[in-house]
């Protein structure tokens, strides 16, 4: 596989709803009420219910996994949580992920993710290290 720094390997938009948050709460065991109750979110100064940061992180790597397939594995994945993803009760939220090659080396590649919600990036230094067979 020939990869060059700057190549966009995947781009995808995910529609996240309150249902997604409840499903992730159950699957992960993170039942912090700011992820399903507006009143609790507002009591700590947030505009409303927001997505679990770990859900955003979990979704953001999916386009990379689909692109990678059987050719390799994720060896390292890191993100910084920089902005909350507010998930409106009726409208939900759209998360857009663009995955671009940041580094190519003997170990494989580093894929850099740009994850946006309403035009703002919500993750910083979102980097996926992949080994390539």
């Amino acid at each position, binding site marked *: 596989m020939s990869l060059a720094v700057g190549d966009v390997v995947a781009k995808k938009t995910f529609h996240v709803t309150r249902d997604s948050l409840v499903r992730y709460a159950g*699957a*992960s065991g993170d039942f912090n009420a700011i992820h399903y109750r507006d009143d609790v979110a507002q009591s700590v100064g947030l505009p409303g219910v927001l997505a679990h*940061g770990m859900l955003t992180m979990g979704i953001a790597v999916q386009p990379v996994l689909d692109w990678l397939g059987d050719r390799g*594995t994720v060896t390292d994945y890191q*993100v910084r949580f920089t902005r909350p993803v507010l998930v409106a009760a009726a409208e939900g939220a759209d998360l857009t992920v663009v995955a671009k090659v940041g580094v190519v080396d003997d170990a494989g590649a580093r894929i850099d993710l740009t994850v946006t919600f309403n035009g703002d990036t919500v993750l910083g230094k979102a980097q996926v290290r992949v080994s390539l067979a």
Partner: protein
Amino acid sequence: MPVNPELQGRVFPPVVPYLVGREKVREFSRAVFATSAIHFDPNAAADSGYSDVVAPPTFAVVVQEATLAQLLAEPDAGIDFTRVVHGDQRFSYSRPIVAGDELVATLAVTSIKSLGGHAMVTAESTVLDSAGAHVVTAISTLVVRGDA
């Protein structure tokens, strides 16, 4: 109570082993919008060389969770859960987690820093399999907001 700076360097006892179940992997995979068959179908996973369904990269947070609970419950830690914000997260894998793994996680507090009235606590959970081989290290930085 501010975060106790003496936490830095503290290593906690290993938590109770976590047995990775096939249905849990499927449930978690659906929750993070995973689509690859290796997360759902043991035959597809076998075709890719795995002994059972493969957990997505962020699944390790489920194993890590019990170690962070230890940290928050530490009597002298001074970490008020209601003031904690997740700052950043990292997973460094030696191999993917698969259903059937029995994993043991051990937490170490690697750094405590003050920044603009907040405390930044970096906690590193090392996850080994039942043979004692490294599977993944999960690193979280928690931001504990100071008094408003």
